[in-house]
């Protein structure tokens, strides 16, 4: 008698971030693409307030790129553009 392959165990949906022990490395990584660069990316401009509001905290601080995963180049542009909007009192 041949043993059936244990398909049942493989079929179970597993969260790749789950870990059995603390020291085991998880397979998945947080690899998020920059939301502001690419082909259909929105325009970063001081008049586009709806977009700028997303990258500001409740206390009007600029969010760091490690949280929003914005690329270096676009983060530099975001900060200058937010500061312009603040001068005009839009944000």
């Amino acid at each position, binding site marked *: 008698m041949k043993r059936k392959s244990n398909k049942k165990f493989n079929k179970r949906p597993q969260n790749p971030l789950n870990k059995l022990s603390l020291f085991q490395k998880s397979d998945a990584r947080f690899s998020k693409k920059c939301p502001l660069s690419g082909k259909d990316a929105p325009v970063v401009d001081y008049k586009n307030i709806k977009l700028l509001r997303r990258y500001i905290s409740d206390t009007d601080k600029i969010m760091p790129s490690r949280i929003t995963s914005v690329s270096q180049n676009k983060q530099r542009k975001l900060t200058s553009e937010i500061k312009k909007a603040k*001068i*005009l009192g839009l944000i």
Partner: protein
Amino acid sequence: MTFYEHTIIAKQDISTPELEKIEKKYQDIITKTDGEIIKVEKWGLLSFAKKIKAYNKGFYIHYKFKAENKTLDEIKRSSIIDNSLLRHLTVKYKKLDTETEYFKEKDINEKKK
């Protein structure tokens, strides 16, 4: 010749004929110093995020034009002196986007209805 954008914030308690005077005044400054106006946008009365000199609201006027250095000096100098303005901002652009308008007066009226 390069492209520029210039926005002005006028005080809230200014009457409408005076607003039109202010709007004309800066158009004349651009045209007299060999500039070229591409577009003028009136954003209307908008409320500030924070108080500016004890004012809660202001009239926004937005110019898009093509000019050289001397017009910029003239515009900045006159908008600093002007008592009816609260703030101003000029931005330099390589390419001007004249189609998209972020502040349309229609949108405000629709919300009221």
